[in-house]
């Protein structure tokens, strides 16, 4: 056996890092980096994070999503140069943000194309699809968007939970079916959340690595909830597995609904969505099935009304929060993170429910039918809310 001095091992482990550091220093100082930067114009990239519209004023919040400092030299609105201010500074370092303020007599309901013009004459276009005054978070608007969340999130979930006494009467065979139905519903929600997340991820500038952020949220949440699940189950007094799953399901659906609220709130403010009665009705139908998913794990044991209310609020009320955030301070980055968290939570619940059964059980015709029906219910009612 050779001598394994721990210090030698440590030194050997650090050696490549030291060499890497030296090489970076060398390249930055005079090395081959010069070969690549000389005479090559800077890579300019400006991304508009959001727009805010007030009376006769347009604000754009922008970020430098390129690798080099970039200067916003001029701004055009509908092809015309327009006077404006950029705060704090026209020159943005990579990942630095700024606000462009343009005094412009915009007309309600019309689209506006705004071009940011950089020092080297590159143009970055941004489209306001429908110009509408950005709501300010005053009491009236808070109430309005809060009610929106209640309509599309809280009430539907609560209605779904009202099936609880009926489902209790169906018996054990029915229980298994409904648990599978729940898995079907959740699978749809995961797919829906992932789709929504990827949509936001590709809209973000590449430098944000949106897909990576989404996956971080997904994986982190999945792991934490798995931990919580085993912790709760391993306690000496032992919390009932069904109860744990019910809470986790409610949490997962709650996070999904937060993302949904974000989408609805921001789409409404951006004018991409007109919230007619039909759409609200669609959400009510679509989300009421979520109530079934939450209570399915506790059908066997039963539950107090208080717990049902708690479950319902955990699953439904994040929609309100989502609507507020989406309407007043929509940020694609946060939306993406929350969609990732939601997807992770939903995935975890699916794994926990499915993990309690043998694979042969899941694929039994009755159970498979439950799974498919659950998926199809979500799919079918999804048509009613196609826009969101």
């Amino acid at each position: 056996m050779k001598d394994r001095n721990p210090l030698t091992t440590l030194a050997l482990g650090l050696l490549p890092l030291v060499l890497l550091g030296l090489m970076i220093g060398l390249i930055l100082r005079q090395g081959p980096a010069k070969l690549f930067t000389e005479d090559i114009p800077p890579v300019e990239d400006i991304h508009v994070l959001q727009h805010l519209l007030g009376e006769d004023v347009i604000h754009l919040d922008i970020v430098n999503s390129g690798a080099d400092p970039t200067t916003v030299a001029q701004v055009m609105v509908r092809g015309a140069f327009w006077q404006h201010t950029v705060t704090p500074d026209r020159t943005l370092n990579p990942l630095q943000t700024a606000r462009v303020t343009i005094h412009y007599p915009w007309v309600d309901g019309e689209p506006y194309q705004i071009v940011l013009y950089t020092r080297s004459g590159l143009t970055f276009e941004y489209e306001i699809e429908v110009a509408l005054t950005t709501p300010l978070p005053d009491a009236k608007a808070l109430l309005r968007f809060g009610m929106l969340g209640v309509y599309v999130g809280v009430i539907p979930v609560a209605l779904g939970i009202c099936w609880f006494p009926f489902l209790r009467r169906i018996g054990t065979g029915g229980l298994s079916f409904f648990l599978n139905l729940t898995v079907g519903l959740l699978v749809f929600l995961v797919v829906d959340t992932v789709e929504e997340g990827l949509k936001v991820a590709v809209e973000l500038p590449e430098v944000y690595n949106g897909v990576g952020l989404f996956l971080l949220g997904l994986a982190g949440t999945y792991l934490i909830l798995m931990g919580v699940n085993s912790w709760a189950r391993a306690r000496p007094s032992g919390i009932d597995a069904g109860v744990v799953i019910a809470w986790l399901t409610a949490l997962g659906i709650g996070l999904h609904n937060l993302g949904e609220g974000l989408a609805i709130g921001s789409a409404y403010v951006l004018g991409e969505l007109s919230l007619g009665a039909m759409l609200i009705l669609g959400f009510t139908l679509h989300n009421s099935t979520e109530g079934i998913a939450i209570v399915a794990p506790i059908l066997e044991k039963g539950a107090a009304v208080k717990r049902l209310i708690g479950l319902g609020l955990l699953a439904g009320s994040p929609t309100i929060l989502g609507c507020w955030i989406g309407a007043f301070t929509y940020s694609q980055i946060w939306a993406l993170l929350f969609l990732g968290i939601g997807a992770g939570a939903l995935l975890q619940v699916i794994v926990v429910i499915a993990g309690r059964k043998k694979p042969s059980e899941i694929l039994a015709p009755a159970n498979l039918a439950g799974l498919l029906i659950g998926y199809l219910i979500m799919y079918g009612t999804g048509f009613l809310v196609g826009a969101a």
Partner: protein
Amino acid sequence: MMKRRIHFGIWILAGGLILSLALAYATFLPDPAAPPTDTEVGLDGMLLRPYRGMTVGDVNKDLFDADAYLTHFETGSVSLLPDGRTLREFVVVAVNKEIEIAPGVMFPAWTYNGQVPGPTLRATDGDLIRIYFKNRGDRPHSMHFHGFHPASMDGAVLKQLVPPGGDFVYEFNADPAGVHLYHCHATPLTQHIHNGLYGFWIVDPKEARAPAKEMVMMLNGFDTNFDEENEVYAVNTIAFHYARHPIKVRQHELLRIYLANITEFDFLNSFHVHATFFDYYPTGTQPEPRDFTDTVIQGQGERGLVELKFPYPGRYMFHAHKTEFAERGWMGFFDVEAAEGPADEG
């Protein structure tokens, strides 16, 4: 057991609360609808919002002085030939140079004498012209003059191009009298012209035109993002330059504008002036004006003489009557000083 379940619920609630606080904090943004701070007083004391369809800031005059260019004519070094004719010699150097076409917006131009448009070369009908052309750019260029000249002086086909580092002497007679252009004729032609290789070539008639305040206006445009559309339009290169620095003239004074359109990518450009009419002489070759108007349209390469007087003092706009061009930089003002008495500020 029940107690622990409640603990678990409290956990989630507390976590959710903290999470929502963090989220609200991270995404909270200031009041989006702050009212504009500066207003102007309009008619009947009405407060006007500061809408301005214009660029922000100003250009670096050291790079190119559009005010000096407006009224500067290069007449060359003059000497008499044995036969009594006048010889005019000019030196023109093609160089690459970054120019500023709107405040803060730089354009990597190919230039004659480091400016876009190139120097305004001026002679009299019948003069012998000698142009010592030095190509100090990084690709072949030429000078192609509109006017009468032999094929060898045309600067157009491949073998007439001057290689980088090369020199060539263009020699021809100034003929005919009028307002003309010179430009590079190397290929790709659109790029060589669009990148800045053009200028005025003015030939005065033997019998001098009436004394006037003279200026040159080159209608040009710049496609800065290579989409074959101009983002910036201007008269004499810099968007809104004469809107920011109005041209000072006097009431009743005769003004003569040498006007040419070199704009790439668009079929037509135009010139319109407010509150007065002008005599228009296409190409400046005929003694009588073709038109008495306030708007004239020019295709690419078309040029002419505009002669006008302002009957009233005050500030008057001139611009392309294609409003899109005007809003992208081709707009300016004349400040007409009263011949006597205070100006009407209207």
